[in-house]
């Protein structure tokens, strides 16, 4: 993916020069290892700041909500699926966008790498198949497949589903992936065990809402947790309120979540709240044969009715 950056800059420069877009949204080089910053270029000169590597995990569709200008946007597979969802939900118009598609080989998980290193990582160097992490007195190379973000290791839509430009030939999609092993283990738990699992999972939550805010789906003008009349959820650290936030947030993403991993990636205290959205993602697949963001033509299951929709849950 290392050659992508140059191609992104070339396309972005061309789009800005020709005036077909007013801005290009991509990433610029981060200031700490394994982080890049979502960034925009408005002039051809500014495209030099745009980069691409295995640390571009933030979902850029999040930056499109309700924008009015013509935008070029760099999009890996999951970003493109959220762009589709945004278009379906009227948060942006297709004709406003020039999608610069990035066939993706997955993003690396900086926490996974940090845990495998003996000290603080001060630099990470990427090659075609892996990354080398360096720090005080150590240098350790990792095969990319061993340190992928969990969602990336399960991804079967690495290539952008819509694009106007493509920075490289499509990559082969991963085959034979068991996407829902973790959900099945959750489903196999008894109610008490599952409750305990959830309690422990959410115990460190500080309600900073990074998971919600990193998510392109969370664009409600007033989120239910911020609503005062009526106040659905308490504002303190009562575990009941923390759970209510996470559960309702997940339900609000049902049939829309693309498992882009931005929520988990953003969490400052390392909570894998994806187990909730993945459970609902699996339900949507099992019940409706639905995967979010694959088509501009088909309405999502939660805003359509079909006579053959399952209704076994009505007791």
């Amino acid at each position: 993916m290392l050659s992508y950056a140059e191609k992104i800059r070339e396309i972005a420069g061309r789009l800005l020069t020709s005036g077909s877009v007013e801005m290009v949204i991509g990433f610029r080089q981060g200031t700490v290892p394994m982080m890049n910053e979502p960034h925009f270029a408005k002039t051809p000169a500014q495209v030099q700041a745009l980069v691409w590597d295995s640390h571009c995990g933030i979902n850029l569709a999040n930056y499109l909500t309700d924008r009015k200008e013509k935008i070029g946007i760099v999009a890996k597979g999951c970003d493109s699926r959220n762009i589709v969802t945004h278009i379906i939900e009227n948060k942006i118009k297709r004709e406003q966008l020039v999608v610069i598609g990035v066939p993706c080989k997955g993003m690396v998980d900086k926490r996974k790498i940090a845990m495998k290193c003996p000290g603080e990582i001060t630099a990470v160097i990427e090659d075609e198949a892996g990354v080398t992490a360096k720090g005080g007195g150590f240098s350790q190379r990792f095969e990319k497949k061993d340190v992928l973000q969990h969602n990336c290791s399960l991804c079967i839509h690495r290539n952008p589903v819509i694009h106007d430009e493509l920075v490289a030939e499509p990559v082969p999609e991963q085959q034979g992936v068991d996407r829902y092993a973790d959900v099945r283990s959750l489903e196999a738990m008894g109610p008490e065990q599952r409750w305990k699992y959830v309690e422990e999972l959410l115990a460190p939550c500080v309600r900073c809402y990074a998971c919600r805010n990193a998510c392109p789906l969370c664009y409600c003008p007033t989120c239910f947790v911020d609503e005062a009349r009526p106040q659905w959820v308490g504002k303190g650290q009562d575990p009941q309120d923390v759970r209510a936030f996470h559960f309702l947030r997940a339900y609000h993403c049902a049939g829309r979540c693309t498992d882009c991993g931005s929520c988990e990636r953003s969490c400052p205290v390392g909570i894998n709240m994806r187990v909730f959205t993945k459970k609902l993602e699996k339900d949507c697949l099992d019940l409706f044969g639905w995967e979010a963001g694959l088509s501009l033509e088909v309405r999502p299951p939660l805003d359509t009715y079909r006579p053959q929709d399952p209704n076994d849950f009505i007791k």
Partner: protein
Amino acid sequence: MKMIAIPKKEWPAGLAKAAGSFRLFGPVKEKEFHSFKRLENGQLPDFSCQNTRLSPKHLVYPQSEVMLTYSLDESRPDHHIMKEAPADTSPRAVLGIRPCDAKAFVLVRMNFDTPDYKDPYWLRAYESTTFVGLSCASPCSSCFCTTAGCGPFHEEGLDVLLADAGDHFLAKVLTEKGAAWVAAGGWTQTADAKAEGRLADLRQAAEAKIASQVQTESLKAADTTALYNAGFWEEVSFACINCGTCTYSCPTCWCFDIQDETRGTSGVRMKNWDSCMYPLFTLHGTGHNPRGTKLHRVRQRFMHKLKYFVDKYDRGIQCVGCGRCVRLCPVNIDIRRVCGLMNGLAASGEACAID
């Protein structure tokens, strides 16, 4: 004040003794990250941690804290009348707090302890706490304490400063509170005459390892409205997702919300951490929001830390350089970079105060 040598083999026994008169808190590793917790009987603080993931500010300033209690039961004579909630103000010691986090309390105190008003909740928690700091022998690469009015051996806000000297800790006793804690641990061995020099050497070596810095020298003289109207805020704020990670992880951020929570007929009025990153923070009842865009909010955070605070208190910036926001921001907005932009604009003369 004097310097004590605490042999590491006497550390656990001394702590067990001190636990008789202090509630002890220290860094503890849970799953992946360290955080400050109440130490269980016999549990030792884990000094192997570079610094805790989140700051220890919650020890003095819990994320949710009950201030007042009330009853809505009209059969009671005191119904609807607010009462102060009870609090445990017995002595406690925070072990292994880093100098940056201890200095942060000194900055935050300026907000909660003013000539006009005193926040009794913050103050009584702070005053009942003895801060036993652990100097930083190997600071993180994203730490910039030495240019943020702090340093790896900084003493402000500490009662005792510990330095790891191999088989023993050097304990520099800085206050009466610190002396009481050392006495409670039963550590009495005065360090030898060379200890001061050793500490100075360790300090120098640690300070030399701080690789990262901020420039702040032009901020004070800068004109507020010129900085406020600077052109770079759109670019700085673009990536921001308006989460509270930076403010919640920051040891110097103090903003809070007040909420009533009722269950049945009894309830509490509580203080909860709040964040200037949230739109709700400033939303008027009418729907008007004076900081209605993320540009407003990101600008507020940096202007507060790097300009308003500087002007209001003349004590430097509202930042101790711990680097947490740099490490934890999900979209890599870096205060060092923004500080550079602000200071640079100020230094360029475009933002000079005109008087």
